[in-house]
C-alpha cells in the first residue's frame, strides 16, 4: 500500500500561497494553450460551416482564393452543363456564377478602412446556401443596386444599417437587408446581384462557379472528367474542402505561434513547479526519513511527491481551462490572409480541447515534479532523519 493521497493533498493545502502561485503559473500556460486551440477550432469551424457537402466549387487552377480567380464565360458554360448537377423543383439547374470583389468599409469602432468580401450571386445562389437567412429587411432585387449585409459586418462596420447607402464600384448601393449564415464566413460578406456587380466593376468573367450535385458521391467522377478537359484550367473541389483550405494560412499561423508560445511558457511553469517541489522536499526531509523508517518503500515516496506535483498541474489545468472557457464570449474579427478580407469567428471550446489541455497540465506537473520526487525517494534514511 502507498502513502495516502490526502497526505499529499494536505501538504499542498498546508502551503497555500506557494501552491496557489505555482498553480497560477501553470493555469496561465494552460489558458494560452487552450485559447489558441479554441481560436483555431473556431476559425476552422466557421470556414467548414461555410461550405455545403454536396456543392462543388470551381475556381481558376491554383488561384487559392476567389478574388484572384477568373472563370470565363465559356468555362462557366461547360461547368453548368455537367449532367451530375441537380435541378430545382422547376427544373432549373442549381448553379450560381459568382463575382467576388473586395471593397473597403470603415470599422465602426476604429474608423479604419478594412477589406470586406462582396459577393455577387446568381439566381440560384440562395438555394445553394440553405444556411443563409434574411434576418432583417429583405433580399436585393435582381437588377437593382441593392445590397444585403452579413450579420458580422452589420455589427462591426459603419454605414451597414438598413436604408443607408454604400458607395463602391462607382455607384451607390442601398442596404436593404441583413442576413445570418449560422456563423459561417458568409456572415462576413456583402451580397449583391452578380450581374450588377459585374457591370459596376467592369468584369466580363466570373470569380467562381458554385453548383449542387444531385449526388455528392459523383464528385470524383466530375473532377476527373473536368480536369482532363483541355478547355478548362480549373480547380474543382467540394465547397467544404475549398473553404477549409481558406483557413489554412491563418490556422497554421495560429497553431504554430500558439504551440511555440505554450511550449516556451510551459518550460517556465515546469521550472516553477520543480522549484516548489524541491522546496517541499527540503522542508519535509525529516518526514521523508520517518516514512521510510516506518517501512514505506522508495517507490511510495516517489509516488507521493509525484502525486503532489501532478495535483498542482491539475489545479492549474482546471483553472486555466475555466478561464479559457470564458473566451467563448469573445468574438474575433480579423483579416484572413487567404482571402485578404475580414473574417469573423468565435473561440470554440470542444471536449477534445478540454482533454488535451488537462493532459498538458498534468504532464507539466509530472515533468516538473519528477526530479524533486526522485531526490526525495533516493535520500538515505539516516541522513534524512538527521534533518530535524
Amino acid at each position, binding site marked *: *500500500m*502507498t*502513502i*495516502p493521497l490526502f*497526505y499529499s493533498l*494536505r*501538504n499542498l*493545502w*498546508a502551503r497555500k500561497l506557494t501552491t496557489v502561485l505555482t498553480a497560477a503559473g501553470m493555469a496561465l500556460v494552460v489558458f494560452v494553450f487552450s485559447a489558441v486551440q479554441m481560436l483555431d477550432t473556431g476559425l476552422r469551424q466557421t470556414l467548414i460551416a461555410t461550405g455545403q457537402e454536396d456543392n462543388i466549387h470551381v475556381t481558376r487552377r491554383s488561384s487559392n482564393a476567389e478574388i484572384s480567380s477568373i472563370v470565363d464565360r465559356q468555362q462557366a458554360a461547360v461547368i453548368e452543363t455537367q449532367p451530375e448537377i441537380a435541378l430545382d423543383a422547376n427544373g432549373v439547374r442549381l448553379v450560381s456564377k459568382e463575382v467576388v470583389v473586395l471593397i473597403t468599409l470603415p470599422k465602426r469602432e476604429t474608423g479604419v478602412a478594412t477589406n470586406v468580401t462582396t459577393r455577387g450571386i446568381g439566381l440560384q445562389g440562395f438555394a445553394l446556401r440553405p444556411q443563409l437567412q434574411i434576418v432583417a429587411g429583405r433580399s436585393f432585387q435582381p437588377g437593382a443596386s441593392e445590397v444585403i449585409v452579413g450579420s458580422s459586418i452589420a455589427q462591426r462596420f459603419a454605414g451597414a444599417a438598413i436604408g443607408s447607402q454604400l458607395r463602391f464600384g462607382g455607384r451607390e448601393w442601398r442596404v436593404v437587408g441583413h442576413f445570418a449564415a449560422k456563423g459561417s464566413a458568409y456572415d462576413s460578406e456583402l451580397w449583391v446581384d452578380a450581374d450588377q456587380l459585374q457591370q459596376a466593376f467592369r468584369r466580363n468573367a466570373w470569380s467562381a462557379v458554385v453548383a449542387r450535385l444531385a449526388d455528392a458521391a459523383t464528385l470524383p467522377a466530375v473532377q476527373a472528367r473536368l480536369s482532363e478537359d483541355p478547355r478548362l484550367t480549373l480547380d474543382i473541389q467540394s465547397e467544404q474542402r475549398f473553404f477549409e483550405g481558406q483557413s489554412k494560412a491563418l490556422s497554421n499561423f495560429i497553431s504554430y505561434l500558439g504551440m511555440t508560445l505554450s511550449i516556451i511558457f510551459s518550460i517556465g511553469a515546469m521550472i516553477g513547479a520543480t522549484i516548489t517541489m524541491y522546496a517541499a522536499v527540503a522542508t519535509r526531509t*525529516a*518526514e521523508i*526519513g*520517518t*516514512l*521510510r*523508517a*516506518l*517501512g*514505506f*518503500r*522508495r*517507490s511510495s515516496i516517489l509516488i507521493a511527491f509525484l502525486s503532489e506535483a501532478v495535483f498542482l498541474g491539475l489545479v492549474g489545468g482546471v483553472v486555466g481551462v475555466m478561464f479559457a472557457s470564458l473566451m467563448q464570449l469573445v468574438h474575433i474579427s480579423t483579416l484572413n490572409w487567404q482571402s485578404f478580407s475580414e473574417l469573423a469567428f468565435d473561440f470554440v471550446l470542444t471536449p477534445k480541447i478540454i482533454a488535451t489541455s488537462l493532459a498538458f497540465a498534468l504532464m507539466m506537473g509530472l515533468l516538473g515534479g519528477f526530479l524533486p520526487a526522485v531526490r526525495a525517494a533516493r535520500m538515505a*534514511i*539516516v541522513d534524512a*532523519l538527521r534533518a*530535524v
Partner: protein
Amino acid sequence: MANAEPAVAIRHLSKSYRRGGQKVVVLEDMSFDIQAGDFVALMGPSGSGKSTLLNLIAGIDRPDQGELRIGGIDINVLSESELADWRARHVGFIFQFYNLMPVLTAFENVELPLLLTELNARERREHVQLALDMVGLADRVTHYPSELSGGQQQRVAIARAIISDPTILVADEPTGDLDRVAAEDILALMERLNRELGKTIIMVTHDPQAAQRARSIKHLEKGMLVD
C-alpha cells in the same frame, strides 16, 4: 522460552564513515545479545556510536561487516525493499522530536504503519483506537500534532510505534525534548509496555535518570562496549 533465540544477536559488527577523506571508525567488532522482553539503555558520550548502533539494529543503516540477526532474521542479506517491508513488520520507532506528520491527525499518524499491513479500514480503526487508548490519548484522535503538547506528541509517536506489534521498539533520546514531568510520563509508559506487554525496547539516552528505568544498561565508548 525453550529455544530462547535472542531478540537481537550482534556478531562482530563494524561500521565506519568517511569524513573529509578520513575513515572514522564508529563501531568496531561489536558482539552482544539482547534477549526478548529486555529493556536496554544504550549510554555513552557523543560520538560513542550508540545512535549508529541503534540505526543498524533498526535496519535504517547498513553495517560494513558483521552479522545482525533480529528475531532470527539476518537483516544484512535483505534487499532495500525487503528491508523496508521488514522494518514495517518488526521495528517500532520512537524519535527524540516525535517525527509525526504535521498534516495528519493523531489518528492518521498512528494509522500510518497499518497502511502497510493487510488490515482493512475497520480493523485499522479498532487497532488505532486501542493504541491511543493505551497511551491515554483516546480523546485526542482528531487533533493535529501542532495542537498537542510535546509529551502528548511523544505518546502519539509511541502509539504509532507499537501499533503493528513489532519485534523490537527502538527509541532515540525519547525524552530528550521533554521537560521533567513529561519525560517521567513517557518513561513510565515505556516501562509499562516492557513489563505488561513484554515489548523488547532498545533506548539510546544521555540521561542517567532515564537509563535507570531500563532493565539493563550498556555503555559505549569509541565504538566499543565498555562493560
